[in-house]
């Protein structure tokens, strides 16, 4: 008997993401990409490398640094049947154009009673970890998830980066697709790589929204992260395994829609939950998941209180030691897991 081992096609996150965009642009001529420095430069975070050469300046469009105009144009073009991808260099810059996202793009389909579709993708880098300070390090995915009408996608690994990008482009709704700078695999920024799934098949594939990935199965504690904190959680789980704690790591992959069934199922199994987020702790994803479990205590029997890790009510500081303190790290997750293992409920 012979076992066929499929050859792995390893790609970095940014390469996988670009491949998804490129294949969709080949498939569908309505798709185009616009943003600041996405043309000849290929994106400040190499998010469009090679696309300008392949598709030309008509479909890979360098815009002025005028994000409001760009987002508004994405709406108008989408309403007229195009499928734009609009890139904000940093998600932090949504502050200059959030009206177009929150009041216009997110609401058109609802306000029109379904008469006008918005098949567009808003993409942006997010996250800190390389001392870019308060205005260039935020995650902010929960802000988008808070607004009805936006789907929110935060891939954690190269395989998902491609499949979720393809789904985002094919979706008839506005999709916010955020890529963390610290998992892109760029040669200029340090990145976390727990090798969750770096296999990126060449043929196009779409990963459905709202289906969580179980990154690691475990029995003792459920650790849920998003984007880079999934990678950190996977690394923490390896350390915990050496110490006899069997952690389950879950990656929801999309905030909207959210795979609540998978989350409840996992926490029902382990009885313990740690939510790790690089977005702000207050009024965000960690609170949302805690509420989800609280509302399902008829299905979930907790063995300890829920633990939340996030950026706790501060902006991201510049100074290296301060920044590393503000952002949840692998050691913080390990410590939190030990605490919940030793804790008990009334």
């Amino acid at each position: 008997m012979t076992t066929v081992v499929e050859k792995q096609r390893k790609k970095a996150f940014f390469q996988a993401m670009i491949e998804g965009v490129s294949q969709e642009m080949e498939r569908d001529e309505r798709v185009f990409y616009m943003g600041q420095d996405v043309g000849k430069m290929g994106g400040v975070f190499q998010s469009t490398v090679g696309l300008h050469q392949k598709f030309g300046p008509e479909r890979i469009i360098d815009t002025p640094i005028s994000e409001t105009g760009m987002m508004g144009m994405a709406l108008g073009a989408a309403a007229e049947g195009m499928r734009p991808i609009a890139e904000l260099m940093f998600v932090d810059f949504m502050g200059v154009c959030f009206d177009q996202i929150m009041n216009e793009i997110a609401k058109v389909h609802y306000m029109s009673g379904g008469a006008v579709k918005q098949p567009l993708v808003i993409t942006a880098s997010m996250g800190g970890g390389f001392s870019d300070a308060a205005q260039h390090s935020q995650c902010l995915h929960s802000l988008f998830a808070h607004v009805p009408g936006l789907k929110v996608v935060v891939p954690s690994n190269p395989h998902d980066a491609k499949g979720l990008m393809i789904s985002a482009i094919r979706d008839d709704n506005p999709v916010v697709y955020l890529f963390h700078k610290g998992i892109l695999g760029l040669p200029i920024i340090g990145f976390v790589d727990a090798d969750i799934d770096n296999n990126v098949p060449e043929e196009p594939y779409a990963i459905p929204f709202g289906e969580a990935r179980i990154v690691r199965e475990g029995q003792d504690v459920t650790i849920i992260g998003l984007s880079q904190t999934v990678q950190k959680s996977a690394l923490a789980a390896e350390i915990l395994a050496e110490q006899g704690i069997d952690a389950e790591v879950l990656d929801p992959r999309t905030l909207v829609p959210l795979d609540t069934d998978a989350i409840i199922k996992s926490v029902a199994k382990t009885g313990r939950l740690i939510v790790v987020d690089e977005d702000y702790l207050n009024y965000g994803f960690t609170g949302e998941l805690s509420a989800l479990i609280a509302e399902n205590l008829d299905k979930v029997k907790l063995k300890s209180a829920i633990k939340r890790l996030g950026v706790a009510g501060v902006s991201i500081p510049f100074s290296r030691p301060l920044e590393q303190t503000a952002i949840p790290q692998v050691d913080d997750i390990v410590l939190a897991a030990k605490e919940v293992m030793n804790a008990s409920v009334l």
Partner: protein
Amino acid sequence: MFDINDKKRWMYETMVLIREYEDFLAMAYFEDKLPPKIQKGLAFDIGAGPVPGEMHLSAGQEAAAVGVCAHLTKDDSVWGSHRSHHFAIAKGIDLDRMTAEIYGKVTGLCRGKGGHMHLFDPDVHYACTGIVGGGIPHACGAALAAKMRGENTVAIAEFGDGAANEGSFHESLNYAGLWKLPVVFICQDNNYGISVAKSDSTAVESNALSRAAGYNMPGIQIDENDPFAMFEAVGEAVARARRGEGPTLIEMKVFRYYGHFQGDPETYRPKGEIEMLRMQDPIPKTAEKLIAQGIITSEQVNEIAVKAKERVKQAFTFAKESAYPDVSETFKHVFSD
């Protein structure tokens, strides 16, 4: 080629229809909103009655809408604002469904989800938004789509002088000027951004004369509230856009005969201003011109008025007799399936 007299007749008829619509709505709006029918202590209840919510009327701005839309085909798009009934009607939006939308009925253009500030009719490529200046870049996006597909359509951004102080206006003009987008910007100067006069909010006297050049496009200022002056200016601007030569900014002086919203006490208006503006009403002036030119007769003027009244009545009857959406619709249409 079109017959210019047909166009002029259409412009006049449409102005009359818009005015009749807005005047009728101005009254219908107050139904059940005044004492004694409302909560004790209130002088006026915005949320009460069959037409709840804010109401921004466009009476006095009709000339701008007809002068623009006389040049448009169904496939050209118009992107409006919170005060855009005039453009919706001139663009050929379904009047029954528009009215039903304003009444929040399930037969409305948006099944009652949008209301009067958020009217969408993709069949005639019309949309508007309640955020000042918010719709201007949408027109640029439609124009970009047309340009990318090699289509000959144009997009119209129509907005007030207040919106010309929004960043979205300036970004949009830069995009359009830079990329020579087939878009025409129609700034309707009704002299007020809500309550603040243009001279107290705007660094220049004329957006068209002072600001267009900054974005590498022609700027045309029309000082008279006259549909034919707008028609002429837009004719050249639309032709230029269709030729691929880029955008134009046109500013026209118009009147806001009602308050910013219905119920606005308008304490900021100088005494006698409305009366003075009513004396210059473009509708009778246009009728006089057309009669003098032998394009219509005074009997036809009367017929047009009667026809408009009947049409408006029919639309409001349709709206009133329509059903509200089932409450289960509250949670539909967040996403497209």
